[in-house]
């Protein structure tokens, strides 16, 4: 019996002081810290961009938009010259505030493009985000891709392409895919003209929508009043 207890203690001690996992966790934290430091050089920005929305039940033209961001988590997209239907998911989940809150970080290997896969699990049980998976370009300290799984609103995918503003971790192009709810009009509202042809709908025929924003310019750390949001 004594011998058994000693063996158990021994195994526990060996496992507890094995260098692998804790060091990896420290590495993950260190990488996050570096990413965060780089991102936090941007306190706010005002950007011009072109937004393209691809949703099965929307036929909308590309729109010139202005984007306003202010730390910690304020983001507003405005179309000054017309109407833009902005997905709520984009406003709720921004790459700039992905590290807000407490979370457990884990490495999960590399993807086929050599990007480090980093998983973030929020510690707050009330957080809507269940899991964030980040694909990190370690050499340039840039998040190239993110998959965010929420409890209520499905999964969002963000894909960033960097260029002129890579030193601020601000993308030149952002593609956001998100889950959609069904669209159905109350009967008798439209009196639609039926021309007998097959309906022309966007190429994406699924419950997913996609928004692409091509940023043309940024004004970084320009003071932005709160009433803008």
């Amino acid at each position: 019996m004594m011998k058994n207890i000693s063996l158990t203690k021994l195994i526990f001690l060996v496992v507890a002081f094995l260098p692998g996992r804790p060091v990896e966790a420290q590495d993950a934290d260190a990488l996050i810290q570096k990413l965060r430091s780089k991102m936090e050089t941007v306190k706010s920005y005002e950007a011009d961009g072109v937004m393209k929305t691809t949703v099965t039940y929307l036929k909308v033209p590309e729109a010139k938009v202005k984007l306003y961001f202010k730390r910690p988590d304020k983001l507003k997209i405005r179309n000054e010259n017309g109407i833009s239907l902005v997905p709520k998911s984009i406003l709720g989940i921004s790459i700039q505030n992905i590290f807000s809150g407490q979370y457990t970080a884990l490495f999960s290997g590399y993807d086929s493009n050599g990007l480090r896969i980093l998983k973030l699990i929020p510690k707050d049980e009330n957080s809507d985000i269940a899991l964030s998976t980040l694909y990190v370009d370690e050499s340039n300290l840039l998040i190239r891709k993110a998959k965010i799984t929420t409890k209520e609103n499905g999964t969002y995918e963000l894909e960033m392409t960097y260029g002129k503003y890579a030193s601020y971790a601000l993308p030149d192009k952002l593609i956001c895919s998100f889950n959609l709810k069904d669209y159905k009009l109350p009967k008798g509202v439209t009196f639609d003209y039926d021309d007998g042809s097959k309906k022309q709908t966007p190429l994406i025929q699924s419950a997913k929508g996609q928004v692409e924003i091509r940023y043309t310019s940024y004004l970084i750390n320009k003071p932005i009043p709160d009433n803008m949001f």
Partner: protein
Amino acid sequence: MWKLLQIELFKIFRKPRTYISFGAIAAIIILIQLGLKFDGRSYLELLMGDISASFEVPYDKVLNGYFVAFVILNALLIHVPLLVALVAGDSVAGEANMGTLRLLITKPITRTQLLLVKYAATVIYTVMLLAWMAILALLMSILFFGTNDILIARNDVMEQIEKADILWRYMAAFGFAAVALSTVAALAFLLSVFADNSIGPIVATMCIVIVFTILSELKIPMYDKTVKPYLFTSHMLAWKGFFYSRMGPDNSVIRGSIENLPAIGRSFWILIGYIVAFLGTAIISFKRKDILS
């Protein structure tokens, strides 16, 4: 002929019932505008219900003059045919009722000329009614609500058209609506030839328009392919086609495009065909008719 047309127009605009249509249209438009001015958001929330679940909708921008005008036209162009029937149905039958038809055909003009002039006068009245509607629905809405992009709710998709790309679509839609309403005028005119009292053709036209509109909108598969394509009421809605845009290969809407122009053209020619058929039948019948009143 011009003198005759002037006389016919004088007859139309001398009757108080002619102004009922103008008054009714003004009343409906003002009521819709007031309703939307004070509670437009509720209407939009009903319309945008499913979209607002996934998207942030700028309701204050969506509720603009172009949108309000579209709502008004959508509501009114179903009912305006009934107002057109009020005058067109009275055109020949009214003369018969008053006992002036026999006197009229003693004038040195052919019966065909007489009917063509009467129909032309009815079409002018119809166009004036549309112009009145355009002024109230479009200009007044722009004045009260301003302008912005327009969102058009269809059965399966929501269309957005940029504000710089809208006005020509309204002009085209009003032009098409004039042809559509002239078809109803031709029908009422035809029925008017067979009656000695204007109530009959007016009510009969209303009934035909209502029954055909219901058949056009019911979406019963049996009627969809057999009856619906031949009903003039199905093609009267083609004015909306001017507000449907085409999409490019990159999934974005092509500015200044029309989704299915050939279909609108087909609807246009079908309506013209109906006008020719109704008017032709009216002329043939009237020429053979023994006029006793």
